[in-house]
């Protein structure tokens, strides 16, 4: 009986916890197309491919895809690969439909389609010096960005600020600091810089956003570039998704998975047109 009890004890011990490998279904790689084109610069696309979640090989890049660009159903260009990107010579025109078709080997053909929305709101921006002081007591200024929203549709905007650096003699990204209720908690901050907002609270109205400038940032001439983009809902959702994304591999304290929005058929990524207006403050 004693020996039997010992055997049972040992078997119980060994059985307490087991670590086994779980087989996942075979993963089919997809083409990834990322492109946000606008009305002021040529259409440039990033084409890559997805890989299995468990793969240790992080080679996403694709340099041998066949990328065709269409405008209103008419082939405009087979886009060449230039130094890591597919660079076309086409500057998109608002109101026209652009379509990209990407093929590579055995991958399913990936397509995306989008239009640059029409914007009639008219960007107006201005700068005022010494409106307040920072925490060290230095005077700081204020940039005002103003535009009119089209009340007939739900619209989404991206505001991006740059200030001139006298040392490097180049424009650099300016972190948007604002007491505006839509922006103050940082929820509108965009992972690409700037802020993204919807017109839910100002549909059909003229809206102003005020941003605080750093001390000394207004010393050069030109001083600031304000860029306003009217973006599509799918691009707004996409930017929100990638901002919220956390690498989640099932840890004990883990975030909810984010299903990143995609408008690429048979692929992943985003192909979207934005209407861009910019203003330089001198």
């Amino acid at each position, binding site marked *: 009986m004693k020996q039997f009890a010992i055997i049972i004890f040992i078997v119980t011990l060994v*059985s*307490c916890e087991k670590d086994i490998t*779980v087989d996942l*279904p075979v993963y089919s790689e997809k083409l990834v197309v990322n492109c946000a084109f606008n009305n002021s610069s040529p259409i440039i696309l990033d084409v890559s491919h997805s890989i299995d979640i*468990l793969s240790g090989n992080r080679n996403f890049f694709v340099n041998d895809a066949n990328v065709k660009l269409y405008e209103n159903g008419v082939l405009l260009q087979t886009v060449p690969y230039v130094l890591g990107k597919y660079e076309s010579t086409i500057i998109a025109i608002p109101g026209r439909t652009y379509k990209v078709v990407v093929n590579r080997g055995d991958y399913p053909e990936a397509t995306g389609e989008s239009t640059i929305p029409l914007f009639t709101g008219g960007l107006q921006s201005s700068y005022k010096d010494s409106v307040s002081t920072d925490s060290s007591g230095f005077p700081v200024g204020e940039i005002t960005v103003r535009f009119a929203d089209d009340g007939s549709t739900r619209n989404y905007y991206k505001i991006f600020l740059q200030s001139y650096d006298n040392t490097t003699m180049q424009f650099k990204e300016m972190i948007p600091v604002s007491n505006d209720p839509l922006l103050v908690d940082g929820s509108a901050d965009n992972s690409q810089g700037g802020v993204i907002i919807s017109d839910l609270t100002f549909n059909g109205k003229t809206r102003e956003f005020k941003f605080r400038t750093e001390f000394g940032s207004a010393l050069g001439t030109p001083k600031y570039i304000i860029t306003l983009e009217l973006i599509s809902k799918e691009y707004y959702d996409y930017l929100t998704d990638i901002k919220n994304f956390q690498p989640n591999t099932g840890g004990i304290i883990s975030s909810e998975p984010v299903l990143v929005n995609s408008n690429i058929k048979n692929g992943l990524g985003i192909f979207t047109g934005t209407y861009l207006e910019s203003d330089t403050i001198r």
Partner: protein
Amino acid sequence: MKEGNNKKIGGSFSISPIAGRLSLEGPIGKSGKTTFAVSGRRTFLDIITKPFFQKGNSFGYYFYDFNAKVCHTFSQKDKIFVSFYSGIDKFKITATNKDTQGGTTATDKSSVILKWGNQTGAFRWNHVISNKLFSNYTLNFTRFQFDVINTFEQTRQTDTTFDQAGLYLRYFSGIRDWAVKADYEYTPDARNKIRFGGSYINHGFAPGAAQLKFTGNGPGNLDTLLGPNGRIYTNELAIYGEDERRITKRVKVNGGLRAVGYNVRGKTTFYLEPRFSLNKNFDGKFAIKGAYSMMNQFLHLLANSGTSLPTDLWVPATDKIKPQTSQQVSIGLNVPLKQAFEFTVEGYYKWMKNLIDYKEGANFAAINQSWEDKVLAGNGQSYGAEFLIQKKTGPLTGWIGYTLAWANRRIIGINNDKTYPFKYDRRHDVSLVSSYKYSEKYTFSASVVFSTGNAITFPIGQYLDINGNVVYEYGSKNAFRLNNNSRLDIGYTKMLDKKRNKRNLEQSWTFSIYNVLAHNNPYYVYVDNTTSPAKVKQISLFGFVPGIAYNLKF
């Protein structure tokens, strides 16, 4: 829990390498009017496995529960009960890494603890008002608490110095209820039974709070509570009435209405909950029943879909988050078969509104945001059929049950606005329990359980976003299924001859095997990045577990 023997003190005791159980019951005093019953259980695996891990490392799970009840009979018309229950489950992993180099000994210790537990207490008074009117008054208290505790401690020691730094992070969530209820049953005649009553419940929710401590022999120690997730108190006041009436010899109907007032943050809303059921018996050959009910639930279950661990939270309906409402229809058939078998089948369909789920990207433990801002609300359905065959008499008894069910959700803003399976959508659930009394001395038992694995969201691919950062491809929400759960347990009890002991105690030995087929049932799934390619690993608890227990009844 039963009331306790009012004649003599008795009980039962069972001990095995895995668990122990003790229960006692009996009269208090000589009058026989007061009885008590207490029982407790605890598993021992965490204790017995400890010596077999290296010092500083351990893995363990245990649970205990304790029940106590005292009953006093004042008269044929008045009886009171006082009861208490406490139970805790705890899962713990600790790891220690020690390294000595160049005269410095570096020690890193980390641990993760998951703990959840319930305590309840109740006072109940049964009072017979008249030979047709019976009443029941209850005062009770319940508390549920869930904790996740992460600790990390680092020490660096030389011949002359000792540096220590520690981090303690505890995330906890809980519910506390105080309730008063009055229930009445009025039987005007043999064909009619009327039930009515009311209740008041005060709920106290702590939907999620975090305690953070930094310790060490440097500057900057901290011990603080974090986050906006303060307590929420709600009140629920309800009255109900139902009438169960035998219309004919074969037809019975039951109709009822419950009215509820729910108060939270100074706002009160009223709800009605009608219900109706009908039973028809076809001369004992079979019976059919149909039912409809409308219900409101002022609690929500928030299930985390990215992990398979029990980190779900219970949160209240508030002024921002509406109560769940549902309507359910069901239809069933009951057929007594030969040889004391009985067959039952029931189908149901339930529509639900105002169900909540975490927004994509939300983290249940994030303390910079209230839980109300982490969720979205939508609708759901659940439907299915349940089959049951049971045998209650004879040497062979038991039952076989099978449920085929679906549970879905659709919430705008989640899963690209498409319908997805609920985390606990269990397509198949099978259970078989049997006991065969071969003789007065030998009893054999067997049970089989099978259920479809939980639905979780697991990444399947990775790719570059527009900024050049890696993001994951998930397919759709809750599209990944953990492995199915299945288990066969068998047991054999041998009664020892009562004549072997002078006190005529009932002794027996039980030999059992838990999980005879050693199926690896999933407890937790994670990605192991230490290998290339990475692997998805599953932790299973308790494979093949033989047991031998000594049982004593006295």
